[in-house]
């Protein structure tokens, strides 16, 4: 199946983003790398769901997109004022 070859650049990009998430000098670098790799993982999960016919992975991808947004906003709030939930 030709769809499997398109997973290779996405996985390579996620690995390079993981390097930045581990070696990033500041906390916003890590948050940015995790956020970008989560979005790439959503596309990868939809690709695998179509490839293998497992439609439960679509639910995981929707939840992952929403959780990445919530996590980024909470960490931005934490970095800005050092207090969450005001």
């Amino acid at each position, binding site marked *: 199946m030709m769809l499997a070859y398109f997973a290779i650049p996405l996985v390579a990009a996620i690995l*390079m983003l993981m390097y930045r998430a581990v070696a990033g000098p*500041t906390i916003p670098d890590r948050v940015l790398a995790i*956020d970008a790799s989560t979005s790439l993982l959503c596309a990868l999960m*939809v690709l695998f769901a*179509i490839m293998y016919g497992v439609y439960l992975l*679509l639910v995981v991808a929707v939840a992952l997109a929403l959780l990445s947004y919530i996590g*980024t906003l909470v960490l931005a709030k934490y970095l800005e004022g050092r207090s969450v939930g005001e």
Partner: protein
Amino acid sequence: MIGIATLLAYALLAIGGFCAVVGAIGLMRFPNYFVRLHAATVAVIGGSVIPLLGLAIYSLSIPAGWDERALYFSNALIIAALIVLTSPVGTHAMARAAHRAGVPVEPKVCDKLEEASR
């Protein structure tokens, strides 16, 4: 025989893979945080939303029932819309918070936000 929709889906997936790799290389190589935000935008919008649109087109031609095809199509479009709507908000909030938290702007040319908030 390969259809025109499948060919379009393959083209979108190839563009998305290229944008993902280019954005990830930029996020590895760029000098400071505020420059890396541009590469992250390329990686998210170009590398995740465009493949999702391609997968939505591709899922209309898989050998399955119409209900399963509609499930894949609608879910891929919903995830693409979620990423398009939520990624700029998170990036903007993180950039503002990082500037306020004192992340260094190392090769500095011009910093209007620092002058304005002084």
